[in-house]
């Protein structure tokens, strides 16, 4: 089967599709506000007349390319192209400011490829058993998993835990706007039809990260002109194999997180990116505590490995159960159906060759991804030398365009500008933005799962203890809180001791 599938790939059109998809994906993904969903939606009509294997290879290539493209703008401009690359921006942009933008991009590329290969192998070997895992996640299990994800972001995301908790709560509250997920009542929509679906993620993302950066620069004018003088030098970008090898555990764990969370529908790639960033940060704390947030290579590698590993993971329930994990897999699911490959347990049995050929194409497209990624970033890296007063008007235009193009709606543009102002105020006051984003992404799912679980149990909380998975997550949350508290007390004692020692 695997060999048959491989032979099916030996077609010039598959290669053309992969290369075309990756290049287009990188270019579109690098433009702030135009993420992988947009790139795939733009290209899907192109694939209508193509044979199934090249068509889906093209779409997966676009997806992979766009994810990497998103990290280009995240690293070089601090403007994440996709929500998940917001995690990459933290250390990636810090590296770029130090002139290591090229190095950060290389690490991002290699880690992406690693995550992709890892999840692809998991997909090929474990698709069937892992699909049944998705079945055991009902509303109660989802609720506790989402709580666990929020706890990880708050406890291990870095910075003050109270700040992070406040941001998560604001994000969850923002998620209340729109239709009630159970009763369908409009909430805080002010009779505005466009608000019924709640805040769209892309306008909020672009506003929070890109527009707020523009506002920050606007109000920092004296500093910005001084900054223009000190354009960072482009340091050599070489990344040795040894350096990547040093990060093997981080990349491996991040890929596991990405694949696992990708299997669970509706969570997407942002949460695993931040979870693995937090994990990498807390693991390295003993060795290199302060480097995270200031340009740690592992801070780039971890989220990139994780958000690329999501692809393979998310394809498992998409193909085996017909549940798309996010907007991107939803479009890919549509492409499968258009090609007459109906998803479901029998997909693997009836269309084994096509399915495995597509997996192998995803695996092998890492090669053109590296080649074109390296070629394109050589050009992109010079963006860092453009003075801000030339760069930021362009970012503003792209942000407006990106927000508008999601639904061709002006409401999204206002949401984007509003999010920009909120983001600006919060950043000036020193609050971290990623927890806000995570709160917004997960808030709605959390509310829906919680209320679904309580509906099924007739209002009894017992349902969260009765299921072993849910109970397991609750115990893990408790352990995490205890661990964080103990760690906090220990470091405080230590720092107090060292402080008194200095005196």
């Amino acid at each position: 089967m695997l060999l048959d599938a491989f032979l099916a790939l030996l077609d010039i059109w598959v290669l053309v599709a992969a290369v075309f998809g990756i290049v287009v994906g990188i270019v579109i993904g690098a433009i702030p506000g135009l993420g992988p969903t947009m790139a795939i939606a733009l290209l899907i009509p192109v694939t209508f007349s193509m044979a199934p294997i090249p068509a889906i290879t093209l779409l997966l290539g676009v997806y992979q390319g766009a994810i990497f493209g998103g990290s280009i703008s995240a690293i070089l401009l601090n403007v994440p192209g996709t929500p998940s690359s917001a995690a990459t921006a933290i250390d990636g942009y810090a590296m770029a400011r130090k002139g290591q933008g090229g190095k950060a991009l290389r690490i991002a590329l290699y880690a992406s490829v690693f995550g992709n290969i890892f999840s692809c192998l998991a997909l090929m070997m474990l698709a069937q058993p892992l699909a049944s895992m998705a079945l055991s996640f009902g509303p109660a299990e989802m609720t506790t998993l989402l709580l666990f994800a929020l706890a990880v972001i708050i406890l291990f995301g870095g910075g003050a835990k109270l700040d992070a908790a406040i941001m998560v709560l604001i994000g969850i509250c923002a998620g209340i706007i729109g239709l009630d997920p159970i009763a369908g009542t409009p909430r805080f929509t002010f009779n505005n039809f466009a608000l019924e679906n709640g805040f769209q993620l892309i306008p909020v993302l672009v506003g929070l990260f890109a527009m707020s950066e523009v506002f920050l620069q606007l109000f920092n004018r004296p500093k910005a002109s001084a900054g223009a003088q000190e354009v960072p030098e482009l340091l050599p970008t070489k990344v040795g194999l040894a350096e990547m090898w040093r990060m093997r555990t981080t990349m491996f764990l991040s890929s596991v997180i990405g694949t696992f969370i990708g299997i669970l529908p509706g969570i997407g790639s942002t949460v695993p990116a931040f979870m693995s960033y937090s994990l990498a940060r807390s693991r390295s704390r003993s060795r290199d505590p302060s480097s995270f947030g200031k340009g740690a290579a592992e801070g780039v590698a971890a989220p990139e490995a994780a958000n690329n590993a999501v692809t393979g993971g998310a394809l498992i329930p998409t193909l085996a159960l017909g549940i798309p994990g996010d907007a991107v897999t939803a479009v890919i699911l549509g492409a499968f159906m258009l090609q007459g490959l109906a998803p479901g347990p029998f997909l693997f049995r009836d269309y084994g060759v096509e399915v495995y050929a597509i997996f192998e194409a995803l695996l092998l497209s890492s090669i053109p991804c590296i080649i074109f990624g390296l070629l394109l970033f050589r050009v992109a890296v010079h963006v860092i030398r453009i003075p801000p007063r030339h760069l930021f008007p362009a970012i503003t235009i792209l942000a407006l365009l990106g927000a508008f193009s999601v639904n061709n709606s002006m409401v999204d543009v206002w949401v984007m500008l509003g999010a920009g102002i909120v983001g600006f105020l919060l950043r000036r006051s020193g609050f971290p933005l990623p927890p806000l984003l995570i709160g917004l992404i997960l808030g709605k799912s959390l509310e829906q799962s919680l209320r679904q679980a309580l509906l099924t149990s007739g209002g009894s909380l017992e349902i969260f203890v009765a299921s072993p998975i849910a109970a397991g997550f609750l115990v893990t949350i408790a352990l995490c809180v205890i661990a964080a508290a103990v760690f906090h007390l220990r470091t405080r004692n230590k720092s107090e001791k060292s402080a008194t020692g200095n005196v």
Partner: protein
Amino acid sequence: MKKIARILSITTVTLSCFGGLSGAVAASEYPSKPINMIVGYSAGGGTDVMARTIASHLETYLGEDASVVVRNSPGAGGQIGFTKVAAADPDGYTLGTMNLPAALALTYDREADYDAKSFTWLASFVSDPNTLVVPANSEITSVETLISTARENPGMLTVGLSGLGGNDHFAAIQFAQAANIELNPVPFSGAAMARTSIMGGHVAMGTMAFSQTVGFEEDLRVLAVFADERLAQAPDVPTAKELGFDVEMGSFRGLVAPADLPDDIRETLMSALLKLAEDADFLAAMKKQGSPVQFTPSADYEALAKAQDEAAKHIWEETPWK
């Protein structure tokens, strides 16, 4: 007398020739430019796939140079696309896909610029009846046991729905009324999510459309279909009507044009659609997509739309979903 008869017959022949000629002129005039087929959902979805299949096959029956272009206008649950079709000129160059009951149900829960009278109902292609479905390992093995379980724990038997105001929601309400039981509806975001929760046993039952159960036979048990007769794909599954519950609900996908479409254009389109309905290639392509094909032309389609409209109105008045 003979002369008069000859003159008369000649006149008749000439007239009929003219008549035929004018008909031929109209037919050759339409279509003289590309026909737009508006789809209210994004590219790659079930309705879009159907539209593209119809479009490519319809071209052959509309004449040599005919071209049918699918245009996606997604957003607001299809409302943007439906509104575009309703507002277009009835010149035959704007057609649209129609989803029942969704398109008409949403005219009750929000402001909409169209209703059932805004369209010329051409033909329905897909009829996908709702079902009563439980997990394969469920203790509920028949509609009877389902009803007795529901009566034992009133309001506790959970039904997984794809959302509110959709055909499965309507089916659940209608069945609960017909069987005089109280169910506990749990809405999910999308049919696939609801199905997964049913398969995993997190909710007790579902009322999903039949096509959603295809391919998941090992994990799901279909107890009844809400159609007027048994399905060819599942001849062992009884209809709700056979069991004594007068419930008929499903999701119907078809083709409409704006209201007041001129008769000659309508006839051209209908004759092409009737030929399409017998095209083996087309039927095979539709079947491959997993949609139960059932061709329901003009008048019957309009009656179906009116019935669905009434059902949605009735449910909205009794149990508003928003």
